[in-house]
């Protein structure tokens, strides 16, 4: 299977482990990722809130590039996905003369791509080391499924795709109500007080639901939760010890990919203890 691939900037910086694990997992599953040549910023930074034209033009250029290849565009970063998806919808009615995009290729988030039947079956068949006994809370954040009229997500209150993937590799995905609540990722610098409250809620509720770790599919969520946890623990006296994974890392682990340990070393909340206890490292 071949698809176009838009990694976005995070996957080359703060979320390098997400990028590496994505590529490794896809390779193991026989999925060829065709990275857009000369891709540019998606506009999720200041551009989309400061310049209306840029908010559309930046993703539009990427979409035009994808359409040249002619394959659906898979995007792992939730923020990139959101910008590209907004552009996909808007351009359908109001095309930009600068970039030719006919709507022939569609934007897919990596989670949704991996959860489609064919890939899911490959994942199931490829499991070498089932994540038996690992209780995970799948956390989608606010950008992957919302707003539904942009994302077309059918089950935007209670998405299941990541849960299905986790079940496919043998993990136990807990039921909880905070899958799509905001983590405050966009307020990290401006309102740390709000962020602490939001991630505190997420961590408390994941724990209440019986989870031992969180699984994410968004670089902002992951880094916000992973970096915030220790400070929050200091402040509240609650030692969460709740590792925050990218779902691709856990897929990689279950598929027995060699790079897994290297990715996990980048985490601030070390998953070593948890994974060792489960016999997974």
């Amino acid at each position: 299977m071949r698809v176009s691939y838009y990694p976005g900037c995070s996957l080359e910086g703060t979320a390098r482990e997400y990028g590496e694990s994505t590529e490794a997992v896809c390779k193991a599953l026989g999925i060829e990722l065709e990275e857009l040549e000369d891709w540019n910023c998606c506009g999720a930074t200041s551009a989309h809130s400061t310049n209306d034209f840029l908010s559309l033009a930046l993703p539009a250029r990427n979409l035009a590039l994808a359409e040249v290849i002619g394959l659906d565009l898979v995007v792992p970063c939730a923020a990139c996905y959101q910008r590209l998806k907004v552009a996909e919808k808007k351009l359908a009615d109001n095309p930009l003369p600068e970039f030719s995009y006919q709507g022939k290729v569609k934007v897919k988030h990596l989670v949704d791509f991996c959860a489609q039947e064919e890939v899911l079956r490959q994942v199931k068949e490829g499991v070498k080391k089932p994540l038996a006994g690992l209780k995970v809370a799948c956390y989608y954040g606010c950008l992957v499924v919302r707003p539904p009229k942009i994302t077309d997500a059918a089950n935007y209150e209670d998405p299941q795709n990541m849960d299905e993937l986790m079940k496919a590799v043998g993990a136990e995905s807990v039921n909880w109500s905070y899958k799509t609540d905001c983590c405050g990722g966009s307020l990290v610098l401006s309102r740390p007080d709000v962020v602490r409250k939001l991630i505190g809620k997420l961590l408390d509720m994941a724990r209440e639901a019986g989870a031992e770790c969180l699984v994410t599919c968004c670089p902002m969520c992951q880094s916000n939760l992973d970096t915030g946890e220790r400070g929050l623990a200091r402040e509240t006296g609650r030692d969460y010890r709740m590792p925050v994974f990218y779902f691709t890392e856990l897929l990689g682990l279950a598929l027995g990919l060699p790079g897994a340990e290297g990715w996990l070393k980048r985490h601030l909340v070390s998953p070593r203890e948890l994974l060792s206890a489960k016999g997974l490292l």
Partner: protein
Amino acid sequence: MTTSDMIGSVMVVGGGIGGIQAALDLAESGYKVYLVEESPAIGGRMAQLDKTFPTNDCSMCILSPKLVECGRHPNIELLTYSQLLDIEGEPGNFKAKVLKRSRYIDPKKCTGCGECTQACPVEVMSEFDQGLGTRKAIYRPYAQAFPSTFTIDKKDRPPCVQTCPAGVNVQGYVALISKGKFEEACKLIREELPFPGILGRICPHPCESECRRRLVDEPLAICDLKWFVADKVGTMPPREKKAEKGKKVAIVGSGPAGLTAAYYLALEGFQVTVFEALPVIGGMLFVGIPEYRLPKKILGQETEVLEQLGVEFRLNTRLGKDISLDELFRQDYGAVFIAVGAHRGQRLGVPGEDCAGVVQGADFLRDLNLGNRPKVGTKVAVVGGGNVAIDATRSALRLGAKEVIIVYRRSRAEMPASDEEVEAALAEGAKIQYLVAPVEVIARNGSVEGLRCIRMELGEPDASGRRRPIPVPGSEFTIEVDMVITAIGQVPDLSFLAGSGISLTDRSTVEVDPLTLATSRPGVFAGGDCHTGPGIAIEAVAAGKRATESIRRYLEGEDLRQGRTLEREKSENLREIPEGEARKPRAEMASISLERRTATFDEVRLGFTEDQAVREASRCLECGVCSECLQCVAACKAEAVNHRLGDQLLELQVGSIILAPGYEAFDPKLKGEHGYGRYQNVVTSLEFERILSASGPYQGQVLRPGDKKHPKRIAWIQCVGSRDTSIGNGYCSSVCCMYAIKEAAIAREHRPDLDLTIFYNDIRAFGKGFEAYYENAKKSGIRFVKSIVSGVKELQQSKNLLLTYVADGQVQEEEFDLVVLSVGLCIPPRLRDMAERIGLNLNRYGFCQTDEFESTQSSLPGVFVCGVFQSPKDIPETVMQASAAAAGSSTLLAPARGSLVKEKEYPPERDVSGEPPRIGVFVCHCGINIGGVVDVPEVVEYARTLPNVVCCEENLYTCSQDTQDRMKQQIQELGLNRVVVASCTPRTHEPLFQETIKEAGLNRYLFTMANIRDQCSWVHMREKEAATEKAKDLVRIAVSRSRIAEPLKETALAVTPAALVVGGGVSGMQAALGLAREGFEVHLVEKEKTLGGMARRIFVTLEGGDVQAYLKDLIKKVSEHPSIHVYIGSEVIESSGYVGNFLTKIRTSSGEVVEVKHGAAIVAIGGEEYKPTEYLYGKDPRVMTSLELEEKIANKDKVVLSAKNAVIIQCVGSREEARNYCSRVCCDQAVKCALKLKELNPEMNVYVLYRDIRTYAFKEDYYRKARETGVLFIRYEPEDKPRVQSGDKLRVEVTEPSLGEKVRIEADVLALGAATLPPSDNRAISQIFKASLDENGFFLEAHVKLRPVDFAGDGLFLCGLAHGPKSIEESISQAEAAVSRACTILSKKSIQAGGVVSSVKLIKCNGCGVCELVCPFGAVKLEYNQRLGRKVAVVTEASCKGCGVCAATCPSSAIDLKGFSDSEILEMVDAL
């Protein structure tokens, strides 16, 4: 249309309370009514509710008598379980097409006893209990349902049944197994398949691949269940044979096809002989399948039944050798069925194939199965991938082969052998080489040394749909083996047919007509493998059955093809898989140990345990709902069940149609943030009604569905699916605020320690008595939080719910145990479809489009509408509107009134006076309802010993038609003059029995009922002996009362066909006009000098309607109508008489007193506007009421229109201690004026200071529009009212409670939403007509829910503001309703009086007048009696309802209630 073409009947669509009311009104006014209801019973939503607001009456208790009244009305024909398809025609003469769906139950025979539900094994979710409880496939929605006829919920045949070649009723036997009914299950299988033990073991079960359970987890282990139940039950005697037909049939071959045909032909009464070439019975079943899969013992047991049926077997007799076809016909065999199978193995066609050590799989297995022990090699190759290959492999292993390799030319996916078999072979040590084909058998010295093979790859699919194997050049290799078993297929050996006149196909099989299995020679049929080539056993069984039918037809001279088809029925309409159906693993059958498996031929699989089987069977999704297991047929003693009854298409002629199809609750899954459907403890309000209901799924205990624990903290979230444009429902559902308050209040009654919170938007308690109810709820501690809940989260440990909301300017989070979503009222797609079918216009929300001055008239002339389908509303408004719609139909059809109703003729009443009592007693078994507990024969024996009992009988169902006939016959033959029935309950059945004895010439009051079901067998189910004794007691009591029962007289009193209407406002005029149009004379009395009332001060409606134009037109019509006598400036001063015959004095404007006679009266004296004392009203000219503001706007008042700031203060004089009611119309008035001001002067700032904005139903759109237009709505608390100071400008100051900030407005104009007051002459009119007032001075209706336009006294009605505050639209509707109600009296020539009424013993009466005081109907009055010379009580029989209050209250026992006199009561007490 000429009036002679007019049809005097009306179709009412919808059997909820609206439809019922409309039907009753029309039926009582002389029209025939068809009441069409989609569900199996009438009652609608109201039946599902627990209590009703604001009186907390039990909904079912007040509804139930209406159901009975409607259901039993001679002029109402119930068409339940029916659907209106289409209408054509014109007003007065429509043709309506109605689909009457089959209940599969004959309603004439069904007695409603309910035994069928006990027998039914299929349980599905109960719609009536909103999915919180279950019901059976044969069901009645609820206990009190009318009609009480049961219904079978039958969808299409499920895929499992459709897939089974033999049509075995899979769902049926699986359902029976799930209930532990093994014998019944086994019997059901044997209907279609005589050999369940055999097929249960060997069938490759195509049914399982179609089983819809696979969509949830894995298909059901259907085949294993069949195996289980066959073994569990063992052999069964065959069902009874038909009489011998004296015709002979020969069957050639005793395989599954032959045996099946033999079995069914023998049952048909034919003499069957089976000719079998082999020395054993069973064909391939015997010689093809090894012992470890199908023990010979089982085969023997199951085929034994054929011998019991008299089938003769001739073994070792080969056709063509030992006997010929011609010979068979010569021997008088009328028909022959050839089912010789396909036993000859196909050759590989490779070199070396003929050497020793190469055997055919079929030969190898035959040899083995005939009791020999064929020699096997050490290393064996088996060629082929079918079941024969696998059987040979596994047998070879058991016979000592060290290694067995299966060589198959395609891959696993294409392998025809069943998965289980392949797995078992692998487990036993076999090896499989895929994509390999043999090219040569290598032999040395004549024996096998190896198999030379070539590798294959898969190419394009071939004709079989499987990918074609293509040899890979140069890939040859050799497998060293010393034996080769070939199993690549078999062909039939049909050499014996040469020259017999029977054609063969190219494939060397017998050529037959696939539909009939007839060969080219008449009388010869063929089926099974010899026709199809090697197939599966169940297909052979199917062929045997097909041949049976053909042979029967052939021998009986019938057409072979007629009515038969090879096509599969559709199975599209299947039960939906319940959301959240839990995954349950498929049961795994145990096997014997692997050591035993490879060393012996013992049966490998051990069968299910009972527990396993029941659990596995319970996984069935019951796709067809009814499984057609026919247990109900067996259980029904009345023989009412008939699974073949079809739907009926009716075409009815009706003059008019009333649509009252109701609504559906909003589906809260569309508002995902509340978690409904995901969180166990979030329920809808309708579900909560069922939770509260004593007859509900939890027997009235307040439990939460998730864990059945008592919740402590319950929250209601309002406006779910209402006032929400995001989901397209911009309107207010009108009823949710009140039902939520009621639910909270009732929950509190159930458990006083509950914490109850209602999160609301505005509390819309605008109806009569609602505000006080709301205030009481607040006082009782129910917490009201004005906030929209933004999200609901579930806690995973406790399954409690966290609600987020904003209050006091802060985000709050609060935990609750249970959350109730107050879901709105919606029009479901099926109603929108109906509207489209009949061409009806709907409004933007899918409700029926109507005009505000004619709210019951749909866009189709002659088609009227009422209830929620017109607009969201509660019960009394629905009832009112239903009567109004009935008036619409009735007015239209007035010329045809009475043309289609039937007057029943009765024989003259027999005079029984002077006869000694001759009592007939009928004791009912009620199926097993009574008979299963009470010893009925003993009660009958006992009753026979009672004095005056002439005959006593027991009946299976006393209410059945044949028993009714019997009862009449006994009355006549034995000269019975009293009848006692001991049965269910008088509630539903007393009128039926009274009717019966009346038809036999007895006075109906000579009937007495003993309630030995509801009050005996049902309550003493476990004390049979004591129950029998009690039944005897009850019968004795009834008999002793019967002994002294007297016939009661009913007299017909003539009715004056004229009406009095008091009040000349909109409602009075509308009522007068309505009655006049129905053909009655009307006296309209108005105290003012002009007609018009309050409406003269209203110019437009909120919706924009021109009130003055409407009013002008109305006045003109009223004034010009020849049947209306208008008395202006006049007043009613006195009224006397009773229903049908009133006499009223009117003082006219000239002072003259006129006396008018009338049969009914309508009070419509309107209301008044409150003159405020607050907010400088009357002191400052800039302060006015909202009505005055409207007048000024209409007159383009400069001051008003040029104002910079205009303020409207709401709830002035309403919702106060003194007037604790909502004036209902002021919010519309404020919104209307605000919008108008903004329209005329967009620069103006308009402020509305309010407590709750109560723009219910579609008025909500205007409230939204006002906000969008910029009108500022500022809330205030009643404890902190706005303050107004006079000055240069009016200074208005108000505190906004959620901000906690003061707002100051410099107003130029201040309008006050002043209260609506009751009319000032309310007390006078109340006295004249003895009509009560409520605590606020408005007139009090007979029942706030179900009789909203009737007074307690018969013949008196009310409408308009006199009843309570309401809009013009509602006043018109209520006036029309009053017309309809009055017509039920005026349209009759006479009314019946007497019967069970009070009678006064004048001698005893001392004229104290207590009776007059207590009589709720004004039926008892003190009058001067000339003879006695004093005042005594006089009963107006026409007004008396027989309630008995006067009799019970009379201090001197001077009043008796006829039929319930003291002597009768005491006689009964003495008998006890």
